[in-house]
């Protein structure tokens, strides 16, 4: 059942797993951000990331190289996320959580369709962000691209953590998420804090999309859907209200998926998603609020 495992091979697979896990983690943190601000899972998060990636692709077609396109796209996504929140989420701010969730499903369809409409269904390919050469560490060849993706993902999440932990605006956003009424009384514009959250989440999504696209070789408008699924699973595994949990959960999921695909042959590509979700389900049954989530104490 389990093939022969040499340590160099395992190390390579773990790093490759951390690399895809890093992409999941970036998107998972975006999900957590919106979940904590509004209590909904943003079903459109992956498609927004896809749209950002296509914007960046257009820029690279017009003479920009990868990193300038990256910076421009992340900035534009931040603005786009805020604008989207103002237009479609603001009107349902006071509606039930389920209503808001359905609105995000609507946004999913709109963004996915718009991308097909604008960019035609032909597959695209993105220039590489990092060198494609391998690098040898302790005699094992690692891919520079994998290491770079891990670095960028962690950097993005760390920057966000610094923002929330050490700036006044970050504090205001946390307060608005934790207790909207009291925050309003202290003069925080809660509704704008939610918009800001959408902006940050969309920018993070752009990072995830731009990290995920180049290694794929070619991608189409649906390339973020499995990644959203894994990000959702990773976030829930870690505990949906914990950003640290989302990162750890997603990285663990990435490594697990990669090892599963490499060493357990009877789990074909078809069953990979199912197997991953089954394991997460098992973990949740033991820890119903995720690995890092806090069990709610309910008052009647």
């Amino acid at each position, binding site marked *: 059942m389990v093939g022969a495992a040499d340590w160099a091979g395992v190390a390579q697979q773990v790093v490759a797993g951390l690399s895809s896990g890093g992409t999941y983690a970036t998107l998972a943190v975006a999900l957590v951000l919106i979940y904590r601000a509004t209590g909904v899972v943003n079903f459109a998060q992956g498609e927004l990331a896809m749209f950002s990636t296509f914007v960046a692709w257009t820029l690279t077609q017009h003479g920009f190289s990868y990193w300038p396109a990256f910076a421009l796209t992340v900035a534009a996504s931040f603005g786009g996320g805020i604008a989207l929140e103002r237009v479609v989420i603001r009107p349902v701010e006071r509606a039930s959580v389920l209503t808001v969730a*359905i*609105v995000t499903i609507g946004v999913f369809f709109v963004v996915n369709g*718009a991308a097909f*409409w604008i960019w035609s269904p032909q597959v695209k390919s993105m220039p590489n962000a990092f060198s494609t050469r391998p690098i040898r560490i302790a005699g094992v060849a690692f891919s520079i691209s994998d290491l770079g993706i891990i670095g960028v993902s962690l950097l993005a999440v760390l920057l966000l953590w610094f923002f929330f932990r050490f700036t006044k605006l970050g504090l205001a956003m946390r307060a608005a998420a934790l207790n909207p009424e009291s925050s309003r009384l202290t003069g925080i514009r809660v509704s704008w804090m939610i918009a800001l959250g959408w902006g940050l989440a969309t920018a993070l999504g752009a990072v995830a999309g731009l990290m995920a696209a180049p290694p794929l070789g070619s991608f189409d408008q649906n390339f973020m859907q499995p990644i959203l699924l894994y990000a959702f699973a990773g976030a829930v595994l870690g505990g949906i209200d914990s950003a640290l949990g989302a990162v750890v959960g997603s990285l663990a999921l990435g490594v697990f998926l990669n090892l599963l695909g490499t060493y357990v042959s009877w789990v074909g590509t078809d069953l990979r998603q*199912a197997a991953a979700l089954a394991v*997460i389900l098992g973990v949740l049954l033991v820890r119903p609020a995720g690995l890092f989530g806090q069990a709610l104490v309910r008052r009647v």
Partner: protein
Amino acid sequence: MSRVVRIAAGLVAAAAAVALVLVLPHWLSDARAAEFARAGCFFIAILGLNLLTGYTGQISLGHGALMAVGAYTTAILTANHGFRDLWTIPLAGLVAMGAGFLLGLPARRLSGLYLALATFAFAVAMPALLKRFSGLTGGSQGINLFDKALTRSTGALGPVHVLGRTVATNDFLYYLTWGTGLVLAAAAWVLVRGRVGRAFRAVRDSEVAAASSGINTGFYKMLAFGISGFYAGVGGSLFVLVSNWFVSPTTFAFDKSLLLVVGAVVGGLGSLAGMALGALFIQFVPSWAGNVSNAPGAPSVFFGAAIVLVMILLPSGLGGVLRKLTEPLTTRL
């Protein structure tokens, strides 16, 4: 007094619904009747989702997979075991009910998003499992009853004779799905007004309060999943018939599960008439969107925009509007 008025209003509305379902095919083309029959299948599945999410407060992103269980029960029994397709419909409901109970097991421990992921896992795994066990399910080819069991597929050979009358196939399928739908809607109406319905609502409104009033919350959650599974199974079984007696793993990819939730919320959870509107929404709005423009991606844009617009303008769904319109009638009397 107001209770009597309410029940009387309910009966009048039910009679009107029956009359509407009966006469509608006179104005429908053959192809339209087939589309309405599909909507009828969605209606039944969404009724089940309404019992689960609207009345018991449990989220399911896996109802498309429960429909698949019902659909494959019908397909396998008809193709390989000599059953006539119509007789498999209740059996499909019962098998899916079993699957619903199993899906309800994690609900005893999980809630909210964690439950949503668990049910979503079921929806994602279903097509893969159907392909994996190809000996039973025909793999990715699916099962085509039109080839395998033509004589046992009611209406596949031409008009159907019912009660001495000849009914065109698509009209027959229309009457079958919406007739079944109305019976199941009536059953749901009775259920939510009884002891079980009260327990469901208690679980929804506050699990802790329900438990401290002596309600076995775990049991009622599983019961809601089971009953809801029965509805989804019947809907899935009928879906095989209205899809030209054909089913394959892609028929019930996870987007069907999302679509059902969209239908239930757009229709307005907690409103039976709203569920019918939700079913019509997910059946007809995508095809209308396709008529506006068939550029790649354009229908999806219009469909998504329609969902967003309905939710912004009517946060409690289409059924919420119906209730507001009819409220003066039932409260003033």
